């Protein structure tokens, strides 16, 4: 019998090692698995490489992880959010390495990691300082930049509903990076607003099938940011 459900956030994030590469889904705080990130923080794990679109806002979730000095490097597209004070402080103090990646390139690098593609060429960033040091090749008379895949040791994602096999659905723009990150890690952990019975999600409406998900924990929405 397959049952990927775990009963606590602590169990959901157990076994993560120092130095891990962690994919954190969400766009700003929408679709961000805040409670899972806080639980990861509480394990005491450090020296993390975080892959996320942003760099945390306020003091919760990713911001807390950065504020506590647990993140060695962040790979993201847009660290400038409404209240990025944890990022700003760590970045200006030279305690946090930043790799800035165009948002679509970030998403495609993660997809490639999940899809068994080592690298790809894209026109995006050609001729800009973001392409410095990267291989450039001409296709159809235009310069393209070689971008390498990203995989995570861990992906933390957030969905609306999930069943015991790990089949997931998302709600509105909270979908964002969740499906692509779910595919690209050795251990994918999902927090869901509610568990549902196996078979109750219409097969045509499964957004992320359970093959990509290893653990699933319920975090009712009322307790959520």
């Amino acid at each position, binding site marked *: 019998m397959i049952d990927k459900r775990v009963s606590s956030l602590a169990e959901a994030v157990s076994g993560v090692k120092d130095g891990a590469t962690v994919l954190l889904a969400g*766009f700003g705080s929408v679709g961000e698995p805040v409670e899972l990130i806080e639980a990861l923080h509480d394990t005491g794990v450090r020296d993390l490489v975080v892959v996320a679109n942003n760099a945390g806002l306020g003091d919760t979730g990713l911001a807390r992880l950065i504020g506590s000095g647990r993140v060695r490097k962040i790979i993201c597209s847009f660290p400038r959010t409404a209240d990025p004070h944890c990022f700003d402080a760590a970045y200006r103090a030279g305690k946090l390495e930043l790799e800035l990646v165009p*948002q679509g390139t970030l*998403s495609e690098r993660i997809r490639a990691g999940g899809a068994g593609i080592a690298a790809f060429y894209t*026109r995006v*960033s050609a001729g800009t300082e973001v392409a410095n040091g990267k291989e450039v090749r001409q296709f159809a008379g235009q310069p393209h930049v070689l971008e390498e895949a990203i995989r995570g040791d861990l992906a933390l994602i957030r969905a609306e509903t999930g069943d015991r096999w790990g089949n997931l659905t998302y709600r509105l723009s909270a*979908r964002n990076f969740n499906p692509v990150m779910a595919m690209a890690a050795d251990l994918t952990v999902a927090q869901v607003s509610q568990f549902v019975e196996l078979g109750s999600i219409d097969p045509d409406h499964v957004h992320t099938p359970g093959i990509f998900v290893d653990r699933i924990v319920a975090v009712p929405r009322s307790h959520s940011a």
Partner: protein
Amino acid sequence: MISLTRRQIAWRAAQDLPDGAYVNLGIGLPTLVSNFVPADREVVFHAENGVLGQGPAPAPGEEDPDLINAGRGFITLVRGGAIVHHNDAFVIIRGGHLDCTLLGAFQVSALGDLANWATDDPTFPPGLGGAMDLAVGAKEVRVLLEHTTKDGRPRLVERCTYPLTAARCVKRIYTNLAVLDVTDGGFMAREMVPGLSREALQAKTGAPIAFAADCGLLKAPALD
């Protein structure tokens, strides 16, 4: 001389969007554009976080916490709207499926180079977002910006001094003073606000401006 407000710049850009267009709205000034599309046109607005069919801002108290745009403002979905995941949102962008993107900018050069992700201020953290993807992926790039910086320096320049988002990508520019095209010969003014002389517009611009033979008046209704 009557300078346009931010909402009036957005209004003017909206008037150029044809019926049936798929249009991405960048963060900042462009997000206002969806409020001003003429009622007889259907324009589908795309947001990089996976929204197709972005509608106007919700009434206070009607916000859905899971429904935001690229600038993280709360939005509504229009009838016929759709949600995609991030990878497909950028398939739409990079794959050439957007008729147009409307972006904000720090600087635009006479060659159409765009700079909108970093400045020379070391205290200002850089932020790429989806701008580089949009600048090379959309069929047309239009920019909305104030004609000069707060301290009066031109934002339309001979060469960008800030890091580039993409080279030679901008086709049309809407400012508080003028509508300009980027042509093979550089900036060409199409419309200017009433009471502004050609010499005065040139003085606020960092590269030579040509004036279209039919250069007209830039007017927008009172919106505030």
